[in-house]
């Protein structure tokens, strides 16, 4: 079979909408266009029924009840609602929040804002494998701690946090536990009961659903979590999030969740196989390549590799028929290399050479082999061009060099 170019291997950024999801959504744009909040005609009832069906599909995927699902515009909004909503609601109880340094910006920047409002935030460090130390977490808890927010899986390195243990600690101490579950949902089994999760942020577009549609699971029993609404209006979603529901998006989200539920077990095995094939292929043909983050506690479809002595953006330029992303500064707006890799203790020199591969539902073995060959070819070519590779091969210790950087850096 001929390979169609370009190849998409950036499934952590977003995913295409599964054709089966699109098909389910279509009637809700035109024939069944009703407002789910219209209580007195069939258009409204039809829309409401579809929303409730989707709510149940999503709840099932995380072992929750449908009423605990609050629809939002996406996970950024869900993270904002969880953190700001809980901080505001439980202000009397305390003002301390615990999170970690490699969270997504939607959590980190929300925490920064809460700090401006007088809250105190502890940012736990991570070890070389990308995971927090549970003893650090225990030590960080005070009698003012109201919320722990630790992501399920990281978006750059795919590392899974010890969620079950964190949930247990939070439960013992009577502290709410929120997790950003965006990268994990539909990829690994998420269970809010098993993991003692009180809130989890979700989004449709990372699991083959549409963009602009997310949710926040908010526990109703044991304990009953209350949140201050951050968007006021008609009192939709149990008063926690006003605004007319995005019915087609929600229908798509529900269908996407159902497909993941049915196919996850099989698909994760297939993706792990493809991911390992990619990793093994690259390691067999290249020296001086390094994996960033734990290989044991990791999403099955993620690999993040540093190709020493080859700058990430130049590598992306060489493999321009493959869509992946880089931790190199040159590809970000800030000109700083990835803060996630930095937190792992990856040197800035290596952070500049890192590439994130995110495999997904529509990748094939042929594509993996094509990408492996392209990456090997371009890395070899760029190393021929790299003074650092030559120096390293001559046995020069690059870390001991007196580098003359320009003033601009």
């Amino acid at each position: 079979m001929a390979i169609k170019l370009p190849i998409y291997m950036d499934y952590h950024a977003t995913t295409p909408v599964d054709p089966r999801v699109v098909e389910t959504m279509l009637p809700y744009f035109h024939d069944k266009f009703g407002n789910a909040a219209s209580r007195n005609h069939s258009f409204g009832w039809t829309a409401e029924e579809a929303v409730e069906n989707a709510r149940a599909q999503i709840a099932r995927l995380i072992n929750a009840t449908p009423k605990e699902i609050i629809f939002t515009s996406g996970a950024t909004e869900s993270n904002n609602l969880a953190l700001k909503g809980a901080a505001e609601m439980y202000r009397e109880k305390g003002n301390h929040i615990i999170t970690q340094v490699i969270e997504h910006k939607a959590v980190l920047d929300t925490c920064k804002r809460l700090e401006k409002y007088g809250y105190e935030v502890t940012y736990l460090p991570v070890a070389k494998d990308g995971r927090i130390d549970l003893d650090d977490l225990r030590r960080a808890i005070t009698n003012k701690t109201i919320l722990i927010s630790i992501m399920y899986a990281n978006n750059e390195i795919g590392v899974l946090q010890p969620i079950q243990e964190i949930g247990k600690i939070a439960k013992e101490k009577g502290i709410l536990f929120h997790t950003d579950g965006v990268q994990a949902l539909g990829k690994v089994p998420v269970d809010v009961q098993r993991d003692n999760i009180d809130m989890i942020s979700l989004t449709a577009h990372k699991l083959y659903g549409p963009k602009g549609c997310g949710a926040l699971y908010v526990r109703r029993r044991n304990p009953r979590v209350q949140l201050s609404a951050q968007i006021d209006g008609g009192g939709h979603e149990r008063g926690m999030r006003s605004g007319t529901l995005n019915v087609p998006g929600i229908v798509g989200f529900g269908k996407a969740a159902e497909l993941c539920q049915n196919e996850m077990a099989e698909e994760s095995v297939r993706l792990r196989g493809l991911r390992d094939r990619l990793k093994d292929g690259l390691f067999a043909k290249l020296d001086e390549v390094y994996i960033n983050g734990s290989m044991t506690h990791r999403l099955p479809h993620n690999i993040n590799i540093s190709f020493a002595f080859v700058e990430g953006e130049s590598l992306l330029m060489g493999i321009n028929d493959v869509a992946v992303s880089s931790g190199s500064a040159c590809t970000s707006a800030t000109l700083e290399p990835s803060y996630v890799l930095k937190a792992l203790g990856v040197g800035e020199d290596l952070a500049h050479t890192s590439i994130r591969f995110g495999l997904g539902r529509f990748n094939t073995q042929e594509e993996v082999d094509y990408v492996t060959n392209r990456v090997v070819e371009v890395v070899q070519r760029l190393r021929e061009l790299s003074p650092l590779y030559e120096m390293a091969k001559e046995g020069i210790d690059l870390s001991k060099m007196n580098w003359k950087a320009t003033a601009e850096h």
Partner: protein
Amino acid sequence: MAYSDKVVDHYEHPRNVGSLPKDDPNVGTGLVGAPECGDVMRLQMKINPETQIIEEAKFKTFGCGSAIASSSLATEWVKGKTVDEALAISNTDIVRELSLPPVKIHCSVLAEDAIKAAIEDWKKKKEAVQPAANATAAD
């Protein structure tokens, strides 16, 4: 980010990649940048001590496409020029030739620095060699 055609051309067909013997008294080596900053350029040129003409130039660069293109272009430009002419090359000339966007201007600065550093190295070597050469002549 879209790259200009000239950047792509230099990236895909870099001119004058390689090394010159760095212990040769007529070879000047400029190594600028830092791995932590994401770019390191090494520019080498072989300069005729009589005519001051740059007869050969080679580079190797660790960096983004624009950094590779800037150094590749620099080797093209310095070849055949005198030392003084090469010293007159400014980063803005490189920016213009390659249509570099503002975030990539530092690549051109680095290339200019590399030219200057290589010539500086050559001059230093020449000064060090001069007395020795005289001593040999006296024998």
